[in-house]
């Protein structure tokens, strides 16, 4: 994981965009940043935003110095998998489920088995408050976005695009392939944290109503 040193790009006056070799390295580097911030080593940093292959730090007092420093950091391993993944019960009846199964070259039932067998991890959030980009499906199950986005995707829709699974926190336009729906509350500003899916959270999707088996 430390084969390629992180590369820091300047972003304006007070931010750095750190590029990493792969998604796993990005998650490990993000975890390292959170550890260092918790230890008080990143004073002034107001945002740490992980994404697919990068982590953005905003509010860096001396970006030049931090950029030079972090290429030499010893990045710790991803935090140990203590405790279980959160379970999200899904009704697998989305309008694009058959199309996704066809893209995968499997039956609808097998597509549901593939999706419920994987353990996901929230790689990053974006698009809307509480919308997490979840990785965990094997590479060969990547799917394209829909050619024409829907003007209104219902809240709770479970959807796929590229290598990611996501759940729409509220109704919004969207171009992802809809494979199902959940009643889980993805975003609640009265809750701490407001987002059910925060970067690093592990997730398993289960068939709603099915006997609990490995969900927790």
């Amino acid at each position, binding site marked *: 994981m430390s084969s390629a040193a992180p590369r820091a790009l300047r972003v*304006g006056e007070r931010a750095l*965009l750190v590029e990493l070799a792969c998604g796993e390295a990005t998650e490990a580097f993000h975890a390292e940043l959170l550890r260092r911030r918790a230890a008080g080593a990143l004073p002034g940093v107001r945002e740490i*935003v992980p*994404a697919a292959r990068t982590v953005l730090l905003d509010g860096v007092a001396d970006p030049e110095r931090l950029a030079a420093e972090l290429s030499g950091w010893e990045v710790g391993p991803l935090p140990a998998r203590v405790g279980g993944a959160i379970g999200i019960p899904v009704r697998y009846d989305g309008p694009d489920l058959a199309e996704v199964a066809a893209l995968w070259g499997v039956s609808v039932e097998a597509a549901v088995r593939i999706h419920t067998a994987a353990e996901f991890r929230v790689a990053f959030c*974006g698009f*809307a408050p509480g919308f997490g980009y979840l990785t965990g499906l094997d590479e060969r199950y990547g799917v394209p976005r829909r050619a024409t986005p829907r003007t209104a995707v219902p809240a709770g829709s479970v959807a796929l695009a590229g290598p990611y699974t996501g759940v729409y926190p509220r109704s919004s336009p969207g171009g992802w392939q809809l494979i199902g729906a959940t009643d889980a509350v993805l975003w609640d*500003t009265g809750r701490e944290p*407001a*987002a059910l899916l925060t970067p690093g959270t592990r997730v398993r999707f289960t068939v709603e109503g099915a006997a609990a088996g490995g969900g927790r």
Partner: protein
Amino acid sequence: MTDRAVVVVRAGALTTVQDLGRVGYAHLGVPRSGALDPAAVRLVNRLVGNPENAAVLETTVDGCALRPRCAVTVAVGGAPCPVRVDGRPAAWGTAVRVPAGAVLDVGAATRGLRGYVAIGGGFEVEPVLGSRSTDLLSGLGPPPAAEETVLPLGPDTGAAAARGSVDAPPWPGPPGELVLRVRLGPRDDWFTAAALRTLVTRAYRVSSAGNRIGLRLDGPALERARHGELASEGMVLGAVQVPPDGRPVVFLADHPTTGGYPVVGVVREADLGRVAQAVPGTPVRFTPVR
């Protein structure tokens, strides 16, 4: 009976509650939001004796009208405009007393775009994640003001002595031309050398399609040197993002926290307050800084 609230009599084109924003939640997909012209907000708050980050109203183009249910101290700033209390002219850019039941009319901007209305005690709508700002991208905070909207006010604890005497001019002057200092990167290598030259030498104009999410520009398209998709990455305030049509967009307060179009450069935060006041058609020049 004292009811510390104001009623919106005329909402105007777009009037929202804003403070200095919602910092620290970008990793959950929550934009910073907050007033587009923060210097104007600090000033009108100081004029009425509020903390600088108290919530104010941000108006767009044609102001708004409010009827306070109690006597209040008000200051109108940002874009200059006529101010009237029950039809009588009142001062802009300083503290004004408005009696209970009177109508405060914040007129159309004579120059600039966005006006700010501070009231002693601040607008005390329910905060969301530490801020009362309306975020038009993600729908957090109160909805934009409509006729009959009732906005609660906090207790007015401002020191009366401080009112009317502040240490800054109320208006730095509206931009006849926007000169935006830009630092190239992080994705300037996605553009041709000619495109980078175009960005810092050619003239752009403020498009009427802009909003609180971004300043849109009319002008020459920037040609990419690299094609294909950039993986989504974190975005900052002031980022100059270039969508497939090649026309740069400068990200403002309600910008998305991640995006997949390359950012050719980032505008200095200090220059963004003037962006908030630039009317459509204003010439824009990018000047490179290190």
